[in-house]
Structure formats: structure tokens, C-alpha cells
């Protein structure tokens, strides 16, 4: 038994749990590859087809040929349309964050991949949280069983979260930005710096709301898994109760995790390799990129693990998980071979 955790202690405990489960981390990274590699292969074919046997390819391989890039972009569609200069180096990170912050419209093909990723991650989230909650090693079968056990609930929670985010991004954002308050406030502003500060303040307000929803959903997710709850609605209600009672701690922990992410993103933005060349440097550059992706996943997992740790600590039930360790269901044939009874009733003949 441990005493109630401070946000910093929970953060550390989260990091400990993440680093203590390297296979989980590796699995999460492989999951990103599962979604990203096929898409990258599609883009690779598009680029290769466009370059063909042209001499331009030599320049494109050796660095950047901006004219070729413009030609490519002019004819690209689908995922190809997302192959833009901002993917180079640190701009890639900034572009994604900026697009999120500015509520920018996403290319349909990329939005599809994001949707797939959110579904994949929602499925794995149950297993991940279960693993961090138990704080001990799991076999793959146990992990997937946990994923399966919690998947439905987490998807229901995800649907509720989607509604909340939809309201925020489709409506509240418009009230604040677009033709909304920000535009009204800055209509006669002739000083960019003032507009920037106003923009920043409005974004802080908006993302405070987003973060609040995110925080509630995070703890609802934790409660669904740790307490083996079925109802996403009641999990959200109880998460809200928990966050209200531990407002300082939950918010501080959230900010700590966010700060960790911002530090990482900033470091990468400045250290990210540029266009590079082909040959061995290509693979070094690729490794650096993947190291960043892995670190970002570590931050994401750290969010989960530290929130689980904080929740468990707050309830003075470290390592508590209400549900029995789930088992991957065997097929009826295997059960029959083991001499276990077939749970399905005999059908009438």
C-alpha cells in the first residue's frame, strides 16, 4: 500500500510504469507503423511514379527540388496532397500542432488515417491502462483479452467524447474565432502584436475547455478500466466527481504531462533533421524521426500511466484493479480438448 501521490510523484510513477513495460511501448510504436507504413508506401509510389526515370529524381534524392515539388503538388490528390514543404524537419511538428490549434481542415485521406488510428488506439487503450493499473507484466494473450474486455466501453466513452469535442471544435471555436469574438475584438486593431496576444488568450480559453473535456475523459477511461465499470456515462460522472475533488492534483498532473510533451516537441522542432540525402544518412535520419515518434508515444503512455497511478494513489489502492485478470478466450475445440464444458446450450436436433 502506498500513500496518496502528489502530482509529481504520480508523474514519476507514471514514467516508471512506462519504462517498466517496454514491450507496451514497443507495441504502441509498432501500432503507429501499422497505420503509417502502408500509407507511406502509397506516397512512395506516388512520388516514384511522378519522378519516373527523370533526371530530376537525382536532385530530389540529393536534397530538395522545389520546382519538382510544386509540380508534384499541383497534380497530387489524396495522401499525395499532404506531401508539402512543412513535412521537412521541425516544421512537421509545428504544422500538426498549428493545424489542430487553428482548427484547420484536414485532407480527407489523412483524416481517414487519423480516424483509423483513433479506433486502433481506443482498442488498445483498455489493455494499456489495465497493464499500468496492475503494474506487473502481462502476456500478450492477457493484454489482448484486456483490450477486448474494455474495447466496447471505451468506444462508447469515445463516442461521448467525440460529441463533446465536436461541439467545441465545430461551434465553440467558431464563436471564439472565425467571425466570432476574436474577430470582433481585433477588428480595428492595427498592431499585430496585440492581435497575437488576443489570439493567444482566446486559444488558451479554448484549449482550457478542450483540456477540461480531455481530463474528464481521461479519468473516465481510467475508472472504466481500473474499476471495471460498464457504463461510459457513469464513468464520466464519477470522473467529474473525482476531478472536482482532486482538482489541483489532476490539473497539475495534466500540466506536467503537457509540459513534458511541449519540451519534447520543442527539442525535436529544433533538432529535427532536414531534407537529407539518400544512402546511409537516409536511415540515420529515419532513425532520428522514429526515436522522436517513440519518445512522443512515451509521453502519451506517460499521460495514461501517471493518471492511473494518481487515481489509484488517491483511492489508496495502489495496483488495484477491480476486474479479474482477463484471459484470452480459447476456441470451443480447445476447451473440449481440455475437457472443459462447452458453455453453449445444446441446440435442438
Amino acid at each position, binding site marked *: 500500500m502506498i500513500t496518496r501521490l502528489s502530482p509529481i510523484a504520480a508523474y514519476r510513477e507514471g514514467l516508471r510504469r512506462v519504462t517498466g513495460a517496454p514491450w507496451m511501448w514497443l507495441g504502441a510504436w509498432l501500432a503507429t507503423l501499422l*497505420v503509417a507504413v502502408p500509407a507511406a508506401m502509397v506516397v*512512395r509510389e506516388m512520388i516514384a511514379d511522378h*519522378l519516373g526515370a527523370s*533526371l530530376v529524381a537525382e536532385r530530389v534524392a540529393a536534397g530538395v527540388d*522545389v520546382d519538382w515539388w510544386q509540380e508534384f503538388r499541383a497534380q497530387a490528390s489524396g495522401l499525395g496532397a499532404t506531401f508539402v514543404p512543412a513535412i521537412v524537419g521541425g516544421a*512537421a511538428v509545428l*504544422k500538426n*500542432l498549428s493545424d489542430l490549434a487553428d482548427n484547420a481542415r484536414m485532407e480527407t485521406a489523412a483524416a481517414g488515417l487519423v480516424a483509423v488510428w483513433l479506433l486502433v488506439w481506443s482498442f488498445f487503450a483498455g489493455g494499456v491502462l489495465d497493464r499500468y493499473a496492475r503494474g506487473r507484466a502481462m502476456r500478450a494473450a492477457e493484454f489482448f483479452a484486456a483490450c477486448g474486455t474494455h474495447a466496447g466501453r471505451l468506444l462508447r466513452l469515445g463516442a461521448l467524447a467525440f460529441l463533446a469535442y465536436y461541439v467545441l471544435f465545430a461551434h465553440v471555436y467558431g464563436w471564439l474565432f472565425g467571425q466570432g469574438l476574436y474577430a470582433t475584438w481585433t477588428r480595428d486593431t492595427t498592431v499585430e502584436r496585440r492581435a497575437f496576444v488576443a489570439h493567444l488568450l482566446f486559444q488558451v480559453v479554448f484549449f482550457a475547455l478542450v483540456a477540461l473535456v480531455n481530463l474528464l475523459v481521461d479519468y473516465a477511461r481510467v475508472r472504466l478500466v481500473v474499476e471495471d465499470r460498464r457504463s461510459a456515462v457513469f464513468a464520466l460522472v464519477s470522473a467529474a466527481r473525482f476531478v472536482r475533488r482532486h482538482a489541483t492534483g489532476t490539473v497539475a498532473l495534466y500540466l506536467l504531462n503537457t509540459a513534458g510533451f511541449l519540451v519534447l516537441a520543442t527539442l525535436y522542432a529544433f533538432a529535427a533533421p532536414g*531534407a537529407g540525402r539518400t544512402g546511409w544518412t537516409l536511415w540515420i535520419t529515419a532513425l532520428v*524521426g522514429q526515436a522522436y515518434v517513440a519518445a512522443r508515444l512515451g509521453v502519451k503512455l506517460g499521460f495514461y500511466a501517471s493518471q492511473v497511478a494518481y487515481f489509484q494513489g488517491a483511492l489508496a489502492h495502489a495496483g488495484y484493479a477491480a476486474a479479474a485478470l482477463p484471459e484470452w478466450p480459447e476456441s470451443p475445440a480447445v476447451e473440449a480438448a481440455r475437457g472443459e464444458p462447452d458453455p453453449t446450450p445444446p441446440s435442438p436436433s
Partner: protein
Amino acid sequence: MVKPGIRRVLASALAVTAWYGLSTMPRAQPAGAAAPAPAAAREAVAPATVVRSPRNANYSIDASLDPRTRTISGRGVITWRNVTSHDASELRLHLYWNAFKNTRSTFLQERLRAASPADRRALLTRPLDDFGHTTISAVRLVGAGAAPPVDLTSGVHAIQPDDGNADDETLVRVPLPAPVGPGQTVNVEVEWTARVPRTFARTGVVGNYYFVGQWFPKVAVLGERGWISHQFHASTEFFSDFGVYDVRLRVPSGWVVGATGLAQPPRENGDGTTTHRFLQEDVHDFAWTTSPDYVVREERFEHAGLPPVDMRLLLQPEHASQADRYFAATGAALRYYGEWFGAYPYGHITVIDPAWQSGTGGMEYPTLFTGGTRWLSPRTTSQPEGVTIHEAGHQFWYGMVATNEFEHAWMDEGFNSFSTSRALDELMPVRFHSERFFGGFLPWVIDDITQPRATDGNGWPRYRRDAKSDIPSTPSWRYWPGTSASITYSKTALWLHTLERMLGWQTLQRVLSTYFERYAFHHPSPEQFFAVANEVSGQDLTWFFDEVVGSADVFDYGVDRLTSARRTVRGIVDRDGKKVAVGAEPLGDVYETQVVARRYGEAIFPVDLLVRFEDGSEQRVRWDGRDRWRLFTFERQAQAISAEVDPDRVLLLDTNFTNNSRTLAPQGRAAATKWSLRWMVWLQDLLLTYGFFA
């Protein structure tokens, strides 16, 4: 009876008119040869040493700005001389701000027609407070001496020669009681009030920042074939005659004013307002700006062989640290345009750094222009340098050569875009691509991506996209508004750069400087430029101008096939008098290389074909580019490794450079692997960014 105020305006106008000998003085004649000027005018106006232009449209204006009501009240006398060989029975006046009166104006209708759904929505939901207009309250014909003025107000009515849109009031006709004969002069007094719009088309107000262009009733140009007068259109700018401007602007005291011309000492009116007076000869327009927030900096441009120019920079306080960049860019334009085309003669120039979101950046007026920059603007990017050079450069093509922008907008914007990219390259040989994030406030320089002059500087991507949208020789006001810039700016810049690569810079520079020298202050036509180009280059370039100006056809040459293998024969051959069957037998130690070059586009241009061989040798052949395809065969000891049409990239209008070459050792896969891996990291980051929600 002339009111005392009017009498003062009139006296001033007549003084200026007389001073410059408007009705009699030939071009470039010393001012001293003019008729004697009244004493009042002599006191106010510094004597001009050279009369550069016909000076047949002259303005003496008194205007007052009331910021509380956003209203300008103006009264002016237009002294207009008929420089044609036939009578003029009417005058035509442009009232450009009526384009912003409501959404039924031709300008806004054209804007709406070409706008994206979002832009259309934004235009249609602009606050009513944004709109502006000009209303003429009186027009009088004033004669010399004590003759009473003739009121022409009742005859003033809007006309719509271009589209018949009865709701458009940007052009009015003023019938005259008697025709103005060739060489005769009339003085027309106009009183008007104008509501300053929230910026449309780079003129208007935001907060307490005013940029006031196209703001006064302006006489149209009368040509030999009648009035060259058009309504205000979305895709074009303006055209006017040269003259002398004497303008007095009354604004709140303490507000900084910048304007066309040379500032005279301001006069405090004792009622919280100050009158600022500006005088300028040999210009065809007048614009001004005022704001209490400007920071004023001054610097002198000096360069051997060119006349000095006093540069006055009106800066937004948050851009104070970029003053040196503005001065350097303005100086670069004055220097390089001066060296390449002809000297800037006015001795002073005012650079306006526009206020944020004013929408007035990047606009040219005689001896004054607006640049544009951002609060954060990295030094390795070309903001404000690019726009500053461009607008300063307009002083030469728009300001002095002064072509008809209604009908041949490409002659100004295109020539200037070409010149801008060339001068920018001299000032900043390396410029990097940058992206702006987080509402566009934060810049990020991608120093892997440079911006080449030939393509990026000339607007190649824009041209490629819209290459077929309009034929350049079409009157510019009839271009499709959504794509007009691609033709006006980009296509022209690209063909001029192509011409530079065809003829060599020295020849093209002589073409342009001859054209400038011959036609500055003369409103030349396209044909006059073409004639100069043919004359100076010593070549008949008509075929080229027919392709690039007289047609919307695109250029696209490419290498369709490249094979290179040992010469072999298979089948039956004659050997020692017998028919012998052979299977792929080598025919000596020779490689046979075959290249099929193709013309994919409709337009024709002679191109080189360059074939490189494994032993390092090269062979270059010329193709007239006329046929749809042409087979080139080479026999060498070495195998070919690549073939490329237009290897020196002379033809910058080629819409597809990637298909210009083929190699037998393609690198496409390796390049694609590199970039797809880089893209994949971006995608993974995207997934994790939006994974925030799960």
C-alpha cells in the same frame, strides 16, 4: 460668383497651370521657357528643371478628413488639355470608390463571381459600415478672369461602357457646353464628399490608419480613338494622364501624413487640424496616408551615376527594427532599376509600412508606395524585401512608362515582376521558404528549401495552374478575375526571363532600357514594346510574342523514350554473298542511342537536346520543336546515360520540367524512399497529435 475658397483653389490651379506652361510647352523643354507664372505660385512651387511629361491633367485639390465620420470632403480644379487631334465634347471622370458602394458594383460583382465559397460568404457578410463611396456635389466649368462659372452638375451621369451594369457608378460623363478643341485647355471645378471604406482593393481605413488611394474624381484618358475609360474592374488597376498635383490635406493635428510629392511646410489651422501640402510634377496619380501612430525614418539613397533620392519611411512602431530592411530594399530597386532601365528622377520617395490587417500593403502610387511586413519576419525570408522592391519598382514601369493598366496590365505588373525577382536576387541571393503557424503569427524558416528566382520569383507555380485561363492580349479588364494575376504577373515575368535566357541579359537589358528611355511618360502600347525588342535584339521576335502574348497555348517539351544498346542485328543478313541467319549479333563496338523528344503542348519553341554518355562526353543538338515528336539517333563507343530537352532551362514557360529528361539509371525509387520516410514521420506525428483525443 465664385466663393472665396473656390477662388483660392482656382487661383492655385491657374498658377500651377501657368507655371508649367501646360498648354504650350513641349516635352523636356526647360521650365524657364514657359509663360510667366503668378507671384503666388512662384512662392509656393519650387521651379522644375525639366518637364518630363505632357502634363495635360493637372489637379489642385483641397481635402479635409474627418476621422469621426470617416469622411473626406474635397474640392479641386482639374486643368485638362486636349492632347488629341479631335474635339472633346465631354469629360469623363473616374469615381473609383463607388466600386465599394454596394455589392452591385461591377468590381464587387466580379469579385463575387470569382471568389471561393468562403471568400464569397465573407464578402457578402461584410459589415455595412465597411462600404464607401464618392458623391459629386458640384461640377463647374471655370474660365479665366471674371467670367462666371458654368454649372455642369445636372449633366453629370454614370456610364457603363464595359458591361452595361446600371448599378455601377465608377465612371461618370460630364457633358461640356462647348467642345474642347485640340490643344485647348479647360478648368473644371469639382466638389465631392467621400466616405472612406474599410479597406477594399488596398484603399481605405482600419482603426486610425488611413491609406487613401483613387480617392478623388479623376479625369479619364482621351486617346485618338476616343475615351480610354473603363469602369473599375476586379482584375485590373488604373490609367491616367500625367500632370501636376498641388494637394492640401487637412487632418487632425499630430497625425503623420505621407503622400505623393514633396511635402511643403504644414500649416496649423488653430482648430485642432493641420493642413499638409504636397506638390508633384509629372505624375499621373496622387495617394496619401495618415495615422497618429507612424514612426518616421529618413535616409538618403546615393549611388554613383544615379541621382540621389530622399527616402522617407513611415513605419508601424512594431516594425521599427525592420527600417533598415525597408531602406535596403528600396535602395536596391532604385539602384538596379536605375542602372538597368533608367534613373528615378523625382529625388524623393515615400515608403509606407502598412498597419496590420489594413489590407493596403503592396500598392504603388507615384513617388509613394506601400510595402508590407509582419511583426516576426526572419531575415532569411524576403518579407518585406520582395514587396518593397516590387512596389518601388513600379515607380519605373507604372509610374514613368505608365502603360494602360486597364487593357495591358501585363506591361506593368509583368515587367515589374520580372524586374523585381532580378533585383531581389541581387539584394538577397539566397532566400528560404518559410511557413507561418498558429494563426499565421509564428514564422518558421525551412532552410532546406531555397526560393529560386527563375521559378519561384517569377510565379511559375501560379502560371502552371492557370496557364490557359486567358490570352494575354485580351484587354486585361476582361480577364477572369480569379486567375488574372497568373497571366498578368507570372506569365509575363516568365516569358521575359525566357527572353533573357534566349537573348542574353545584356541584350534584354538594352531592349528594356531603350523601351524605357523612349517611352517613359508616353503610355506606350504593346506593339511599341515589340518593335523595340525586334529593333534592339536584331531579331524578328514576332513569333515569340505571338506565342506568349497572343495565345494561351502552353509549352511542354519532354523526352518520351531513351534507349542505348550495342548495335545488333537479328534475322537474315547477307554475308559473303549468302543469306545467313543470325541471332542478335553485335555490329561492331558501337552503341546505338535513340531519343524520342516530344512536344506535348500546343505552343512551339526551339529547344536543345542534350545527351550524356558514360565516358563523360556529351552531344547537343537543336530541335525546332515544331513536330509533335522527333527521333534522334546517336552512334557512339559509349552508352548513353541520359537525355534532356532544354537542358539549360531556357523555356521557363514549360509547364512540366519533370518530363524534360530521362536517364538509364533512374533514381526515382531512392528519392521516393527518402521522402516517403520523411513524410511518414510527419504522419506518425499527426496520428499522435490527434491521438490526444483518445
